[in-house]
């Protein structure tokens, strides 16, 4: 019995001793279930009525991609009318699911992001997949309820939640009426430029100009939006032709192009120069492309790591981007679920770039060799900082150049370096210990020198993690009850 395999098998194969229900259990369960069913049916009917009304009133798709090279039929240059802010609300399908006795999982019509909250509840079982912050105000997008039992789109319950106190408390926000990412359909990522203008994407593209109260689907002409970032007064988005299925919607992509749109216009214009058509990875390889923006419109800078390993850079004004480096020290790998970059994780801040190069993953040991390289001249030249920790599989990196802070999210926890990546310490995660302390993370971002946000790899935790001390400690905040 000393062999670990034997002990595991013995535990697993031990006969489960049945536990008979106390008398009356079935009747109690039946009554409780009936009460929940009544409440849910009432709320589903209300939600459906709202959406039917909104669908009848919604105008056609208003925006189109603009491309300087006219005559490409898949990217017509027609310009639509921007959506009026007063459009009737089209709400997300945030209801249904495994609601608890006290939950109120109703899709919230017209609930928007605001500094004072919407007053609407967060749907139960909210599983955050993507997070965005503008100062203290933030939002998460994810699935809620029970897939297959959503009142509006039966299969998926795409939902939004907002916070106005940097993640401490959350309220319901209306969501795009679409599903989870599935091939060419659905959305799983979210970015807001300010508290009014936001985009939900991956692979579809939806826009709001009223803080999420109403959402409009943008045409993408058969392409998928694999990445989108906001800065200054613009959004920049990567459009690609992809054949990946299911959650791997950003897999097997070709023909990446960078587009930009001034907030409020819904007119997407191709960024001229090499970004208009990114160089591909080598033959037979399908790598990800990733986008990082820093600063505002004046002096702000964007960086785009192409599948080939070429690094492009340009201003945030819509003007042409150019090649910063023909090849960064490590090429991007195949995209992970949701288009997550692998192989080369890029972060930028105030002219400083950090690239975390990762080896192929050792699935047996759950470790990964990592190398940190940096550039202080916009990506033209790179120097090695250090071989980073081997623990965990890296998923995301964030930096604050002023404090030489680098935070790395891995499937084995969050790691922090206060010296630009030279030395690393695992961060304190609260509640720590057996569960949250071992939580893997899929995303980390720093929004100021002190404040940052991380998403657990398991959305089923219903939490985001927040730091207010420069990444030293991270506190879990529940977005919704289970």
């Amino acid at each position, binding site marked *: 019995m000393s062999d*670990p*395999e034997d*002990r*595991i098998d013995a*535990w*697993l194969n*031990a006969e*489960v*001793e*049945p*536990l*008979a*229900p*106390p008398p009356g*259990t*079935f009747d*109690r*369960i*039946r009554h*409780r*279930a*009936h009460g*929940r*069913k*009544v409440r*849910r*049916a009432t709320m589903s009917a209300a939600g459906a009525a709202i959406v039917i009304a909104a669908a009848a009133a919604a105008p056609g798709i208003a925006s189109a991609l603009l491309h300087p090279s006219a005559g490409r039929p898949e990217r017509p240059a027609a310009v639509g009318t921007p959506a009026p802010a007063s459009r009737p609300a089209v709400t997300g399908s945030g209801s249904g699911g*495994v*609601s608890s006795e006290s939950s109120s999982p109703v899709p919230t019509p017209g609930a928007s992001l605001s500094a004072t909250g919407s007053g609407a509840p967060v749907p139960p079982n909210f599983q955050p997949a993507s997070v965005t912050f503008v100062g203290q105000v933030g939002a998460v997008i994810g699935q809620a309820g*029970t*897939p*297959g*039992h959503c009142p509006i789109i039966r299969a998926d319950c795409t939902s939004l939640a907002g916070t106005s106190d940097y993640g401490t408390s959350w309220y319901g926000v209306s969501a795009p009426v679409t599903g*989870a990412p599935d091939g060419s359909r659905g959305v799983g990522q979210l970015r807001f430029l300010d508290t009014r203008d936001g985009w939900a994407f991956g692979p579809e593209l939806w826009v709001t100009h009223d803080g999420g109260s109403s959402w409009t689907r943008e045409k993408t002409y058969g392409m998928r939006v694999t990445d989108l970032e906001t800065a200054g007064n613009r959004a920049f988005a990567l459009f690609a032709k992809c054949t990946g299925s*299911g*959650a*791997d919607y950003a897999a097997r992509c070709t023909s990446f192009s960078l587009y930009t749109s001034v907030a409020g216009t819904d007119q997407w214009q191709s960024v001229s120069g090499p970004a208009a058509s990114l160089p591909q990875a080598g033959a037979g390889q399908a790598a990800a492309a990733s986008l990082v923006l820093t600063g505002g419109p004046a002096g702000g800078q964007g960086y785009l790591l192409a599948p080939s390993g070429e690094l492009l850079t340009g201003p945030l004004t819509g003007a042409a981007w150019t090649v910063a480096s023909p090849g960064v020290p490590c090429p991007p790998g195949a995209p992970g*679920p949701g288009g997550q970059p692998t192989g080369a994780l890029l972060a930028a801040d105030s002219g400083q770039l950090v690239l975390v190069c990762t080896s192929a993953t050792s*699935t*047996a*040991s*759950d470790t990964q060799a990592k190398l940190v390289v940096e550039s202080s001249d916009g990506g033209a030249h790179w120097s090695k900082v250090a071989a980073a920790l081997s623990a965990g599989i890296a998923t995301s990196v964030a930096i604050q150049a002023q404090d030489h802070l680098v935070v790395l999210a891995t*499937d*084995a926890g969050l790691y922090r370096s206060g010296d630009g990546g030279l030395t690393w310490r695992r961060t304190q995660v609260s*509640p*720590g*210990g*057996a*569960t*949250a302390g*071992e*939580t*893997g993370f899929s995303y980390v971002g720093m929004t100021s020198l002190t404040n940052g946000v991380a998403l*657990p*790899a*398991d959305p*089923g*935790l219903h939490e985001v993690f927040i730091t207010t001390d420069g990444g030293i400690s991270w506190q879990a905040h529940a977005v919704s009850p*289970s």
Partner: protein
Amino acid sequence: MARLRTADREAAEDLFNACYPRLAGWVRRLVDDDETAHEIASEAFTRLLARWSGLDNPQSYLYMIATNLVRDHWRKSGRERRAIRSLTAGAPLDPAYHPAQDVDVRALIEALPPRLRSAFLLHYYAGFGVREVAAMLGRPEGTVKADLHHARARLKAALGD
């Protein structure tokens, strides 16, 4: 709103009679407490009955919900343990949680990262196939296989220490 129709009620009661004892026993091995096991099994059945129509596989739904509830219980009890520890800082640690004595398979499963733990419990312990677990967790089959591999490797390494 009508209550469960007679046929549905009979089907639900049949499922309850067939599955409750095993589900509650399954949970009891994870929480080691009869009362909590009954609470979790009852809550899982309540949620199942509240969603009764349209479920393709009620049994997998039951175990999925039970797995989530067990996870919540572990988190809650972990917080309580830590709160007690902080209150009794300076006093000897509760021997029940001394690392040297806490190395049993259940505790190690509890300590697995959530991503690995759910897949492990549903596949190895509840007996669902990889495809079924992938559908339940909304992950690709390959990811589930890798998670199962990682989970076993971690348990094996921990038990070998």
